[in-house]
């Protein structure tokens, strides 16, 4: 069976769900950020696959932008962790309890 668009989309879907699982279940902020990256990467894979099978380069351009945006987002997120760590000495979600949910 030759590899088609659906195969790539299944991989992308699995990655997205793994990332979602990580964000929901893990309590370490750094690992949660990595899970977010996984979700964004899943979207990237879907976009590249779509671009390939739809004869249209816009998808690849989107990935190009997403990589840049993700890099900026990670930088800000990590800086937030550092700022928080300076105050609290923690990088765990459970310790973020001075504001209740």
């Amino acid at each position: 069976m030759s590899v088609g668009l659906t195969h790539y989309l299944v991989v992308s879907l699995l990655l997205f769900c793994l990332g979602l699982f990580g964000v929901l279940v893990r309590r370490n902020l750094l690992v949660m950020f990595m899970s977010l990256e996984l979700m964004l990467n899943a979207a990237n894979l879907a976009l590249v696959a779509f671009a390939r099978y739809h004869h249209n380069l816009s998808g690849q351009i989107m990935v190009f932008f997403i990589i840049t945006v993700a890099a900026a987002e990670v930088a800000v997120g990590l800086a937030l962790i550092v700022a928080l760590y300076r105050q609290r000495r923690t990088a765990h979600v459970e310790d973020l309890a001075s504001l209740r949910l």
Partner: protein
Amino acid sequence: METLCFYLFAALAVVCGFLVVANPFSRNPVASAMFLVLTIAALAGLFVLLHAFFLAAVQILVYAGAVMVLFLFVIMLLDLKEEERRSWRKFGLVGGGVAVALIALLMYAALRQSPLGAAGEPRVEGSTAALGELLFRQYLLPFELVGVLLLVGMVGVIWLSKRAVP
């Protein structure tokens, strides 16, 4: 050959992705980061299979290079060793797992029923010249916007990671 490569990279991506979020052997964030690097590399491999050569290179350079180094840098900076020992919350684990598995199943079902097979033969070649053409013509404005976004990132990160003046 291509099929073999696809399955190889796909398996690598999914397995390493799993080890990022739920590594049964180690709870160390460094391990997660390393597996994320592997996932990203596998994805770059898939990009090559999809003829997106430039993106594959960018993926490796920016993600595996810059972003992951940033992650590792912060992990080292914070020195989070003692926090590996925290226990999983059983309820959250099972609940989250079931919920996400359900979502995955639903999406898979949706995917199977969709008329994607008609998408035809792959044709697009991700030549860098064509990408550049598109980037600096149709998508010029978002390109400039991303520049602004990077400025925000710079200002924000410098300010956030500075020590507060006592």
